[in-house]
């Protein structure tokens, strides 16, 4: 916890209404300003108490406060440092430790995730029982989407017209396992816009989950491996379609600052969100009409951590006959926040319900978002509200449908349809 | 202590003092002396004598509303502020003016007009002084746009019952240092202290003004009908309704983006027609007035001058506003309770068997109702309670002026939510109850 970064906070409170936990509970210590104050207390010598750790753990890391802050406080850096300190210094309750261990043994590993798909689906029936054992287990069961057939992407997808760029594509663990069709759509859109897309087969996790949870060493390991994978692929730009992965890859230089040689290699690798990249590149492929109403959800790690708000909206608006609707309280997190909904299930559920209410109020046909976590979280909340299955799609899928002239009816239908209530 | 000694003590202050006459009566109570101080210090000197000799004092300016409020329980000294008649400072560049309490609003307006500015109030009683304006808090048509005097007052100097001279606020428009005593004294009917001078924020005189007037022949319509009950008995019924054009015209105008400054009604006799007038101010006033015409029906027309009744209280039988027999009520309600205001008045007039004239703000829903001075006191009381019942619980009906005989039979102030706190404020400012005692709600 860098005292200099803490000092940047002038205590103006502009972050309060942007903070999901403050919105929920209205308590100073569950606001960014309050958490920075707690960090200050620790720096001044107060040991990390259960109460203090609880308030840090309750932070979703959505970074809405970073957007709201006029003083430029690096809360993102501060909370990462703080999480690392909490991991090092604080002894958690045994059940909490067990859940965290389970989550981090599972999610960053695609093969383990794949192995878990069937048991997770089965456990949905056991939801009530699991909830009693531990709310986190219940949350896990509730979130798991029905999984489509896995899609295997070739190591290289060639440009479908005159080549304008050559880029790498990060497939991600959760995206790759639970939403493979999104990666396929992303690759197609890029190819149709004139890009050679390189997809290194053994890229693994980018380290986002570990980084956002204060598991520094693990995060650095994943970062090094990801950089090496794309260097081998011979690309200098990596296109990412998962908000959380994009934001952590953009932080690689900071994450690896202490490692000789690696910082420079991290700097050399350009990371771009898909929408950011497409907007910079400019459209050449024909957009075909897509008569559908979509509500765009700002994933925190895209809107707040990467500042990417205008680009996806611009791309969606450029699709003929598509109507774009805004969701109320768009800056407030849906409660997914990486592994948050697994380790803080109660708060995540409250936020999810709040978000679902506003999403439903927007009255769109399809909910569009750029983060698999958000999609699962909001879909689960809508289900909880008794509103059945909401159609969800990634921005890439919407673009793909327009470029290929597909019917809007396919968006968010077949791949995620559930077999069980 | 004899009357003589007290008179000597007053003389000794150096303030001009004379014996009171019939014309100095305060709501029927005759004071013994009239003091004519020329400064806040002189007011303080008079108040110290009052304190030493337990004399009750009532302040007066133009005397135009001295008969408003309940009669004082006692009144020994009438403090006439006519000599505090200087406009102390008009800082045109800062849009503020400081004036002594005895300056009339007309004199003030003349002084300000020289600098192209105005106090954006339409004080409805001619001859009102700055002090009287504040003590009664009376306001006119443009309350809709600029609020009442409390909203334009930025500083005040007062003299308390013990002769303490205190000020609050200042001469800057924006100022939150300390409590705002000006607000507390506004509308306090002289029961907390005597206002010596006041500072107001000003507005530039509008480049142009235009009025749009329209008439409504029958603001309230009556329909006879029949009603049969469960037992088959048939009754004759009479239902009253607000004229539809009026009901739609008012929100159409007040909520219009054309931003009228005021919307007033004059209804001289509740069985007859009423006139509606809307004021528009600004460089493009004529253009906006023309556009407003379209919202006000077929009779609407634009005028460059206000109608003769504009910005005046309703009157009866040419008694003017200063006459002894004035009977004047104020009705305040929520803006959208227009029908309650009109129907409540219409029915109260019919039930009580009186004549009434009504004028006031359609935009802010503050109306004044005048009854003829010779109205039977019992009928006045009956009318007041009928009116209260008719305009609804959220509304407030205050009897501003009424002859003593009728005044004894009615509740002047209606519901006052925080009366206990008001008593406590009075106890602190004037523990011995020497300032206008009994003139205010709850016998304050």
């Amino acid at each position, binding site marked *: 916890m860098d005292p200099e970064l803490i000092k940047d906070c*002038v*205590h*103006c*409170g*502009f972050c309060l209404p942007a903070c999901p936990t*403050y919105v929920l509970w*209205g308590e*100073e*210590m569950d606001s960014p300003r*309050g958490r920075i104050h707690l960090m200050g*207390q620790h720096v001044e010598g107060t040991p990390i108490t259960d109460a203090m750790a609880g*308030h840090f753990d309750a932070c979703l890391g959505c970074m809405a406060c970073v957007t709201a802050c*006029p*003083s*430029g406080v690096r809360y993102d850096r501060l909370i990462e440092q703080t999480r690392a300190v909490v991991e090092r210094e604080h002894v958690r309750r045994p059940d909490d430790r067990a859940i965290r261990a389970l989550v981090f043994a599972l999610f960053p590993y695609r093969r383990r995730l794949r192995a878990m798909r069937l048991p997770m689906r089965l456990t949905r029936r056991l939801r009530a029982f699991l909830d009693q054992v531990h709310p986190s287990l219940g949350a896990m069961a509730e979130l798991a989407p029905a999984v489509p057939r896995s899609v295997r992407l070739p190591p290289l997808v060639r440009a479908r017209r005159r080549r304008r760029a050559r880029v790498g594509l990060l497939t991600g663990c959760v995206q790759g396992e639970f939403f493979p069709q999104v990666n396929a759509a992303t690759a197609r859109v890029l190819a149709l816009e004139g890009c050679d897309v390189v997809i290194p087969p053994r890229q693994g996790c980018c380290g986002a989950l570990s980084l956002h949870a204060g598991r520094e060493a693990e995060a650095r390991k994943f970062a090094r491996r990801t950089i090496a994978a794309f260097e081998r692929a011979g690309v200098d730009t990596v296109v990412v379609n998962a908000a959380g992965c994009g934001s952590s890859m953009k932080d690689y230089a900071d994450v690896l600052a202490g490692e000789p040689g690696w910082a420079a290699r991290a700097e050399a690798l350009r990371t771009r969100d898909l929408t950011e990249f497409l907007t910079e590149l400019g459209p050449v492929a024909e957009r075909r009409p897509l008569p559908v109403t979509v509500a765009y959800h700002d994933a925190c790690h895209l809107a707040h951590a990467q500042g990417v708000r205008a680009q996806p909206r611009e791309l969606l608006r450029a699709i003929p006959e598509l109507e774009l609707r805004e969701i109320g309280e768009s800056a407030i997190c849906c409660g997914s926040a990486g592994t948050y909904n697994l380790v803080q299930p109660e708060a995540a559920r409250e936020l999810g319900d709040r978000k679902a209410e506003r999403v439903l109020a927007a009255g769109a046909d399809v909910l569009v978002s750029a983060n698999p976590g958000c999609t699962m979280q909001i879909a689960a909340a809508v289900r909880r509200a008794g509103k059945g299955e909401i159609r969800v799609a990634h921005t890439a899928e919407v673009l793909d449908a327009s470029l290929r002239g597909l019917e809007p009816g396919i968006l968010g239908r077949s791949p995620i349809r559930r077999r069980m209530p | 202590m004899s009357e003589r000694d007290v008179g000597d003590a007053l003389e000794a202050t150096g303030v001009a003092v004379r014996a009171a006459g019939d014309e100095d009566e305060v709501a029927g109570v005759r004071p013994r002396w009239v003091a004519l101080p020329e400064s806040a210090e002189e007011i303080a000197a008079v108040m110290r004598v009052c304190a030493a000799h337990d004399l009750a004092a009532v302040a007066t300016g133009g005397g135009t509303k001295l008969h408003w409020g309940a009669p004082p329980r006692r009144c020994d000294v009438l403090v006439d502020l006519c000599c505090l008649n200087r406009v102390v400072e008009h*800082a045109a*560049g*800062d849009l*503020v003016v400081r004036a002594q309490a005895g300056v009339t609003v007309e004199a003030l307006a003349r002084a300000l007009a020289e600098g192209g500015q105005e106090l954006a109030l339409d004080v409805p009683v001619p001859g009102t002084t700055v002090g009287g304006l504040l003590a009664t808090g009376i306001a006119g048509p443009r309350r809709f746009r600029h*609020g009442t005097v409390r*909203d334009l007052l930025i500083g005040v100097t007062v003299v*308390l019952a013990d002769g303490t001279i*205190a*000020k*609050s606020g*200042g001469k*800057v*428009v*924006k*100022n*939150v*240092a*300390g*409590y*705002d*005593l000006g*607000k*507390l004294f*506004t509308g*306090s009917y002289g029961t907390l202290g005597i206002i010596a001078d006041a500072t107001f924020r000003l507005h*530039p*005189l509008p480049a142009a003004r235009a009025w749009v007037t329209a008439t409504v022949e029958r603001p309230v319509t009556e329909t006879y009908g029949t009603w049969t009950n469960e037992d088959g008995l048939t009754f004759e019924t009479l239902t009253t309704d607000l004229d539809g054009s009026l009901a739609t015209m008012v929100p159409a105008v007040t909520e219009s*983006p054309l*931003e009228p400054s005021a919307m007033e009604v004059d209804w001289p006799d509740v069985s007859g027609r009423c006139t509606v007038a809307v004021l528009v101010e*600004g460089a*493009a006033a004529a253009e906006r007035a023309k556009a407003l015409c379209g919202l006000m029906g077929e009779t609407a027309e634009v005028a460059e001058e206000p109608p003769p009744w504009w910005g005046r209280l309703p009157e009866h039988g040419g008694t003017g506003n200063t006459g002894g027999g004035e009977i004047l009520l104020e009705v305040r309600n*929520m*803006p959208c309770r227009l029908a309650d205001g009109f129907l409540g008045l219409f029915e109260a007039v019919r039930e009580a068997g009186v004549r009434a004239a009504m004028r006031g703000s359609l935009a802010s829903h503050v109306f004044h109702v005048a009854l003829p001075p010779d109205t039977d006191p019992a009928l006045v009381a009956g009318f007041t309670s009928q009116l209260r019942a008719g305009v609804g619980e*959220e509304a407030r009906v205050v009897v501003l002026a009424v002859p003593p005989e009728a005044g004894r039979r009615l509740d002047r*102030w209606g519901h*006052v*939510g925080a009366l206990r*706190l008001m008593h*406590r*404020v009075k*106890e*602190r*400012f004037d*523990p*011995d109850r020497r300032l206008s005692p009994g003139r205010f709600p709850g016998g304050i």
Partner: protein
Amino acid sequence: MSELERLTARLAAVLPPGAVITDPVRLRTYECDGLTHHRATPGVVVLPDGAEQVAAVVRLCGEHGVPFVARGSGTGLSGGALPRTDGVLIVTSRMRRIVEIDIPNRRAVVEPGVTNLAITEAVRDQGYYYAPDPSSQQVCSIGGNVAENSGGAHCLKYGFTVNHVLAAEIVTPDGDIVELSAMDAGYDLLGAFIGSEGTLGIATKITVRLSRAPEAVTTLLAAFTSIEAGGHAVSAIIAAGVVPAAIEMMDALAIEAAEAAVHCSYPAGAGAVLVVELDGPHAEVEHQFAAVERICRDSGAFEIRVAASAAERAAIWKGRKSAFAAVGRISPAYIVQDGVVPRTALPRVLAGIDRLQEEFGIRVANVFHAGDGNLHPLVLFDDSVPGEAERAEIVSGRILDLCIEHGGSITGEHGVGVDKARYMPRMFTGDDLDTMQLVRCAFDPRGLANPGKVFPTPRLCGEVPGVRKGAHPLVEAGLAEQF
């Protein structure tokens, strides 16, 4: 066992679970509001969920003789919500329901924890808004606005909180729930309550006036080479009989900070920028705009930008509204001052501030509501340099002296709080302050509501009427005077 401990033990009985905070680490996060150089850890924090709960807590405070302080979002800049170590901090952040929106009657009823901007957001679609707009409007609470009588950039034309509140339900220091309404006859206690900085009670429900959104809004940004030229333009605009919705000015240093924080892209090389907003009917705004543009050019504006859309208007305002916090980017520490001068005295006061900067070697960034002479000098310093904080404090005080000398005020909108109580005797006489405190004594004779704020010397109210008891220990110790 102290009275506070005895009281704390009883709080759980009147509040819902989780509404009483006693953990020392948690308590400390409430040690200050937006003004961080006054700090005090509250004895206990409560988070009530309704007027009855507030009243119950206040009654307990009365029974135990324990002081209480109300706090909304904690954004105040005068330490008005500075807690008492021996008292209860009553935080209204959970009382944030919009109780009623009544468009036909142009009013909304809200709980005190509702943010200022939330009201506007709730009625914007229907063409209305809540007029007062303090720079912190996205976070500051209406309860806090009522306590401080908050203004904002647009109060030049539209007035302050006190001009837009129609009624308030308050909990008096006795623990009674009382309705103060502008409709009622009698004393304007509502007017006296608004701006009393929590010393007369706690507002638990507030009825605000909603204003019709203007037909046209034009925002213009004019860049001048010097602050003098900008000031000249302001005078000329007022003299021309134009009342803009807002006239804001920032000097070069403030521009630099805003640029660093929010990249507002104000014209390069500007010694001052003026933001003028005109609103009203189309026809009027056109007239006024022509006049204002001409005046700015005549006064030497080298660049004039006009916001053509809501987004461009937001971009112009963004620089201004974030200016305070943005100064954090160019200085390790700073003091925000809030003086007022008659507008015509602005040039003289600004020259005086320049002299102070030179004399003390302290930089001052100026941001102000030029239309009403409300200055927000930001006194910059580095707290790691020995003596600099003290010099900044002196400069800050001297600026207030300048304001008073020129017939102004020590605070235009931030309130007196704990920070400026000591300056009150420079602006008011003892008699003035005693008279104000009569109101305090009427509402709170025991002085339990936010003691130590607004007034420099605590006064004991004595019994009413007239019967005095023996000398109070505080009087004997010379710490207080008695009426």
